[in-house]
């Protein structure tokens, strides 16, 4: 085992996959000579060379499209968005080109690409350096969405995403990059976390909290606080947002009968809305209380501190919502 930061776990996963498979390459802005804006790709160009680590012009469309074209012909490209917000320029490539490719090719041509980059708020990044719009791609057939919370999962999921034969959008919460540390397995173990499997990060009896990304840490903190009040939270980290692991959620709900969904994105139309809908549609009898959601307010992530705090969900928000559910 190795003790590493969240950032280092992602870096090592990509490094080991590039060592293992010569078809894997990466492309992005400032990823080579500088090693990436956040340093996630530090040392890659020196080691793997400029043909496999491409410093691209400011052209998000092309960055993703190069991965698509290369994927159609047997390669596995990892596209870095300097901030995941800038994926909007490459949106068409993900949604209309990569997402549909297999379908259009009669199942013959899969598109194994990973589009990755720093996401999320809580760092004063303001509108275009804080967004969390996994719902755009959650809504898109043919595209998988991953959003880890811990180094071991980030490591195992990055490897699985690179090996997966489908377009994967991989969200790396920048708040976690250097704040969260943990042990990851040694390379010899060939550790993989399969896409589409949630993980119970904390067992509890009273309320099931379903969440992902940075919010997992908020939920765990809330759980710790509520324990003192005698309220026991079970915290499920989805890890992969799409495909969605409903089985793990249902298993937990059978025990707790109360569901709290927490996500950092704007509340309306988010991943939590789909989970709530599925439970209401198919598993209504499991519930002893209305489903609750804690999410960002339906606004952009603003710059000034009081505004950002107001818009984004907090540990307090989770604690209050859980208390209400417990009292129901």
């Amino acid at each position, binding site marked *: 085992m190795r003790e590493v930061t969240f950032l280092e776990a992602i870096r090592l996963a990509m490094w080991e996959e590039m060592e293992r498979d010569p078809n894997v390459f990466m492309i992005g*802005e*400032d990823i080579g*000579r*500088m090693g990436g*804006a956040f340093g996630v790709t530090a040392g890659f160009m020196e080691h793997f060379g400029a043909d496999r680590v491409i*410093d691209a*012009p*400011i*052209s*998000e*469309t092309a960055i993703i499209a190069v991965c698509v074209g290369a994927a159609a012909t047997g390669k596995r490209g990892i596209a870095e968005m*300097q*901030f995941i*917000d*800038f994926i*909007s*320029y490459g949106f068409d490539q993900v949604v209309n080109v990569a997402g549909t490719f297999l379908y259009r090719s009669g199942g013959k041509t899969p598109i194994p690409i990973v589009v990755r980059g720093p996401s999320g708020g809580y760092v*004063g990044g*303001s*509108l*275009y*350096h804080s967004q969390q719009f996994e719902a755009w791609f959650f809504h898109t057939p043919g595209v998988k969405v991953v959003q880890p919370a811990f180094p071991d999962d980030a490591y195992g999921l990055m490897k699985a995403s690179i090996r997966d034969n489908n377009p994967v959008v991989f969200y790396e919460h920048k708040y976690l990059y250097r704040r969260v540390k943990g042990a990851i397995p040694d390379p010899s173990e060939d550790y993989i976390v399969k896409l589409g499997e949630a993980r119970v990060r904390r067992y509890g009896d009273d309320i099931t909290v379903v969440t992902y990304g940075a919010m997992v840490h908020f939920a765990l903190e809330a759980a710790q606080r509520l324990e003192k009040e005698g309220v026991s939270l079970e915290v499920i980290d989805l890890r992969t947002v799409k495909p969605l692991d409903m089985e793990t959620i249902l298993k937990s709900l059978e025990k707790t009968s109360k569901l709290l969904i927490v996500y950092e994105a704007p509340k309306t139309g988010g991943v939590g809305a789909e989970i709530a809908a599925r439970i209401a549609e198919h598993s209504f009898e499991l519930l002893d209380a209305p489903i609750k959601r804690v999410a960002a*307010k*339906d*606004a*952009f992530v*603003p*710059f*000034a*501190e*009081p*505004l*950002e*705090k*107001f*818009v984004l969900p907090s540990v307090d928000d989770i604690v209050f919502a859980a208390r209400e559910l417990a009292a129901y």
Partner: protein
Amino acid sequence: MSRVRTGRKNGRQAVAYHERLTKSDLQKIYRNLWFARVFDEALYDAKKKGRLRRGNVYGSRGQEAIIVGTTYPLEDGDFVSPIHRDMPVFILRGMTTEEVMCQVWGKAEAPTRGKDSWSHMGDISKGIVHSTSMLGSTIAVACGVLWSLRLDGKRDRVLVAYTGEGATATGPFHEGLNFAAVHKLPLIVVVENNQYAYSTPVELEVPTKTVAERAKGYGIPGYSIDGNDFIEVYNTMCAALEHARAGKGPVLIECVTYRLQGHADHDETRARQYRPVEEIEMWEKRDPLPRFRQYLLSTGQFTESELPEPPPDVVEEIQRAIEYAISRPDPEPHTALEDIYDESAGVSK
């Protein structure tokens, strides 16, 4: 016909527009250049001292001649579309220094009411178009502003859109400039070629020897000029304005310059690794401020003491605005949910 002019020699305009500048003009220009320099230095300093705790500071040190040379000949009713490297443009085009500092500090009375940071602001009433982080997108938005002016019968009003050389690689840059050229819109694109896009050198952003050569593809004039020479920037800009106001379509001006600092304040250490020391030293010598001062002295119209470095009133104005911004209230939390929709339906603003 497309004309590509590369280098200082060919870039200099036949018409010496600068000769019409009066002593009072020259004094203002000198002050404006220093204003841009001190603005930059004061914010770097505030960040370093922890007085500014949020947001990045993207400096324009070394690029002041572009900022001043392209704004000085503008008239009322003209538009500008500045981006992250052009903060002084907002003030030179009519916003107050206090307003801009409030924006930097995310205060309630900032143009964005604390919602967005740095250069993501504007004031349509003053002809300043708002930008986003999405590099290149302003060039396409500019076309809409110019079309609106056309609908209003104001065909001789121009829009000056700033961009880095790196952002010329984006799709919207191409779509915007192509549209403007097809429809002969009076768009002047000022490319501030400071040799780097973050860490990426210009050779990896632009395949041609000069950025100006891109103009060929749109059938518009493209100039590659010394962006550190105020006179050259000013003269080229005046020529571009005549061209655009006459209805002849867009012009691309590549101002060759150098980003003397890191990409932003957080980048100082790394920027000393990805840029060769000799290169930095060479460009320090081409600093546009002493060059313009030298020019003023050479005209015989100024004495040394008339040209203080920096002019004390500039320092005072900027410091006063910073203290003002710091003293002003933060936005109320609930205002975060305001300005998402405008419900005054049917009312054109």
